């Protein structure tokens, strides 16, 4: 498995674990406090802001740890720079990001459907979150696909 594929797999796994962990914490461990608030817009605003912060900070820390782990593991082999990206990496990143952005835009449009049908506001946020999660996961899946199958 190449280093780029390893990075994509690592990103995919951490996204799933962080998102799953955060949802379990909010609706599982603190469910008694949070579940009665799901109809409030303020709750969803805080939910998304906290999730964004958690994702950004955790991913930075986890990638630092990943880099340290790879450096220690490959100390006897030739040095492979984790931050170095060439034209093929950029092209793969652009292609996978383009498709994942389409999913995110589709999610935003889809989130308008429950609102227009008169459903509570929580359904809009749930739709946005689901599509946001799927777009993030698919971005890594497409990266893995392009790295293994070629552009």
């Amino acid at each position, binding site marked *: 498995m190449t280093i780029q594929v390893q990075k994509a797999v690592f990103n995919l796994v951490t996204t799933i674990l962080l998102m799953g962990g955060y949802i379990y914490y909010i609706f599982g461990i603190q469910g008694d406090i949070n579940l009665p608030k799901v109809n409030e817009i303020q709750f969803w605003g805080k939910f998304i802001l906290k999730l964004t912060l958690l994702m950004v900070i955790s991913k930075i820390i986890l990638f630092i740890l990943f880099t340290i782990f790879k450096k220690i593991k490959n100390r006897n082999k030739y040095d492979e720079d984790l931050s170095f990206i*060439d034209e*093929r*990496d950029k092209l793969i990143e652009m292609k996978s990001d383009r498709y994942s952005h389409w999913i995110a835009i589709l999610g935003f449009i889809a989130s308008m459907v429950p609102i227009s049908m008169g459903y509570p506001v929580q359904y809009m946020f749930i739709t946005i979150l689901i599509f946001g999660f799927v777009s993030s996961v698919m971005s890594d899946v497409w990266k893995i696909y392009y790295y293994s199958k*070629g552009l």
Partner: protein
Amino acid sequence: MSKDHIQNNIRTLRFFKEEMTQKQLADEVGVTRQTVAAIESGKYSPSLELAFRISNFFKVTLDEVFTYDSSKDKFKKK
């Protein structure tokens, strides 16, 4: 997604250049080893700039490194 219509002789050229490794060539032309491997296996067509860098490194012309077979190209004129 192998590009059959664009073939290359990089593997042969590397062999005649003191059996240099993919990593050595990658360092010379400023890409990753995986990109050199992808070009060699036909999974990736390099940019014109990279193609020229590769041919310059081996001191050969571009068509001695890359060959194009129009009969295998799926391109259709509009």
